[in-house]
């Protein structure tokens, strides 16, 4: 047998990924040697890992795109920015977990799984190739299935985990089936090669290509909970431990949207007309389902789940616009949504009392009299989510709406505007509970400095971005380097 030469690939662009993987395994080992009351160190270490990974990403990142591992990994401004958002989302979710999860069994595994989920998202953000994309997606999904069902003694947590797992596997099957069609036509997994292959394939291949497109869109739409592939979202959000709900509402959405944009821009540019038609319908459906169904919810986690579906519908306007402004709008939206959503969930986690969280809308009644600070912060997040001017959420909507109008989708922007008015109703209803109703339940707040700091930081960020949106918009536009 001839000896085989193994050339060592360029590993420098993957330093953040390797660091996170090592730290995740280290926390898994460390947890075995920690006493029960010191288990929380794993969480602090996970936060440090996110911060350090951010530093490493800024260090290895560059303006031009660097490819590594035979074109199976790409590092560009787009992926670097997405990774920074993912780190922020994960770090905040870990902070929310510190107090929440400490009584549970398997604290170390919990943080390990969160870091591995983050690793999966990082790989997705850097995937120039269907193989890397799918593996990253599965790494992320597998961790989130377990995390959703983490509270095994709570029936609805197990139920949510199982539901999410079964529907998620089905969506993965759709995605793979679609990829197999695209591979069959073009003979490649590489996004760019698939793109040129589709452009040069004759009209005979058109049907197979369209079928591949539809299945790939269905698979990815599931991950970002775009209607009609949103069915798992309310149940999974309600059943999951609240910090995991916060985590799922931001980080996987960033990764999913980033990989969706990359697939559309690199692999399917010649099908732009077709996919814009599909996404227009999905966006309208998503806005309708999200904003109308949220009105009927009494549980705030379920309400925020439908709110996420609605927001994903708004975000899709940026994808539908199909130009640099639109994609930058998606990043702006996700950046601002990160703060709003994390902040709102932080207040929900803080209201945890004796195993029952402040989960029903009624529980928020009279909050302003007990804790005016939390009430103010919650009010700011909710107004921002509703898109009230001069808070962060307004600019998020503004950027994608303008992008949609300028690319000639005026009707979509009008529909989106109508639905955001509908959405404002149920957000402001919670504000009414907080400020104008009498207290109905005894509040029992978790006192945790880091979590209180999270509330303060996210509230300040929502206001600051609302007053000075331009820096965020500029950074997001610069982050499109390497994709367009």
């Amino acid at each position: 047998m001839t000896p085989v030469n193994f050339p060592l690939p360029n590993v420098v662009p993957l330093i953040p990924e390797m660091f996170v993987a090592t730290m995740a395994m280290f926390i898994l080992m460390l947890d075995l040697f920690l006493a029960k009351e010191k288990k929380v160190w794993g969480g602090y270490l996970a936060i440090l890992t996110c911060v350090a990974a951010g530093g490493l990403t800024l260090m290895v990142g560059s303006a031009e795109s660097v490819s590594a591992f035979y074109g199976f990994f790409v590092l560009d401004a787009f992926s670097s920015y997405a990774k920074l958002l993912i780190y922020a989302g994960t770090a905040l979710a870990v902070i929310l977990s510190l107090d929440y999860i400490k009584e549970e069994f398997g604290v170390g595994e919990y943080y390990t799984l969160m870091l591995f989920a983050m690793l999966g998202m990082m790989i997705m953000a850097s995937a120039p190739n269907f193989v890397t994309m799918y593996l990253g997606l599965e790494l992320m999904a597998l961790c989130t299935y377990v995390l959703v069902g983490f509270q095994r003694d709570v029936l609805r947590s197990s139920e949510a985990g199982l539901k999410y797992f079964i529907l998620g596997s089905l969506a993965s099957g759709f995605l793979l089936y679609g990829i197999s069609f695209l591979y069959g036509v073009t003979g490649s997994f590489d996004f760019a090669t698939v793109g040129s292959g589709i452009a040069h394939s004759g009209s005979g291949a058109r049907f197979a290509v369209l079928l591949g497109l539809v299945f790939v869109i269905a698979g990815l739409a599931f991950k970002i909970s775009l209607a009609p592939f949103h069915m798992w979202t309310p149940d999974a959000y309600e059943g999951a431990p609240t910090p995991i709900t916060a985590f799922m509402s931001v980080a996987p959405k960033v990764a999913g949207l980033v990989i969706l944009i990359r697939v559309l821009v690199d692999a399917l540019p010649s099908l732009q007309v077709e996919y814009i038609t599909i996404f227009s319908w999905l966006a309208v459906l998503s806005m309708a389902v999200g904003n109308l169904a949220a009105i009927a919810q009494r549980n705030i986690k379920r309400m925020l789940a439908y709110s996420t579906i609605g927001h994903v519908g708004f975000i899709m306007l940026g994808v539908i616009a199909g130009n640099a402004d639109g994609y930058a709008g998606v990043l702006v939206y996700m950046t601002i949504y990160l703060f709003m959503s994390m902040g709102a969930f932080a207040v929900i986690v803080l209201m945890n009392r004796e195993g029952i969280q402040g989960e029903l809308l009624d529980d928020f009644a009279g909050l302003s009299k007990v804790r005016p600070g939390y009430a103010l912060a919650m009010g700011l997040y909710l107004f921002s989510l509703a898109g009230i001017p001069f808070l962060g959420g307004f600019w998020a909507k503004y950027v994608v709406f303008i992008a949609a109008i300028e690319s000639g989708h005026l009707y979509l922007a009008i529909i989106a505007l109508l639905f955001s008015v509908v959405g404002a109703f149920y957000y402001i209803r919670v504000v009414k509970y907080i400020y104008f109703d009498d207290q109905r339940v005894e509040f029992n707040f978790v006192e945790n400095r880091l979590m209180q700091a999270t509330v303060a930081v996210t509230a300040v960020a929502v206001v600051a971005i609302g007053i000075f949106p331009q820096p965020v918009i500029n950074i997001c536009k610069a982050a499109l380097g390497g994709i367009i």
Partner: protein
Amino acid sequence: MLELGFFYLFAGLAVVSALGVVLSRNTIHAVMFLIFCFFNAAGLFFLLDAEFIGIILILIYVGAVMVLFMFVVMMLEVNFAKLREGMLQYLPLGGIIALVLFIEIIAAAGSGVFSPEGIPDPGHAAQQVNNTVEIGKMLYTKYLLGFEIAALILLVALVGAIVLTLRTRKDAKYQNISRQVNVRPEDRMYKVKM
């Protein structure tokens, strides 16, 4: 000619056994049909000179995964008649979607892209090549990143399965072997002054 005959034999049996999986009422029979289906798929791989994948399919899927299926089916008493109850209710909508999808797939498959004429016959080019060596070379060079991520996925699956199933119950009595070994006579027996 012989090869063609074998192809139709394996392919036909695979389709028939796959139908058997879906249609048989007895779950054990369904699992058996699935095993048979995997054997036939392995046969198809052998016809393509992909002996490594064929053997892997038999070893892992038939040898490990299906045995696990068998255990699960035997240990869980699932009432499948009850699971089928809602079927008629969902049949119209589900049936329409399935039919549309089926037509689309047939149209895509029949559009000529995947026809034997479109894809050149490699003959038996792989006959002189050691599949296992070539797959190994590709896996550890070009697909190294994917290979490593797959390893992490396996680790996560392992950790996840343990997290979701292992619980130390407070009310259960556990053996502490080191305490048992280190036990002294004084611990078990003491003199009582009468």
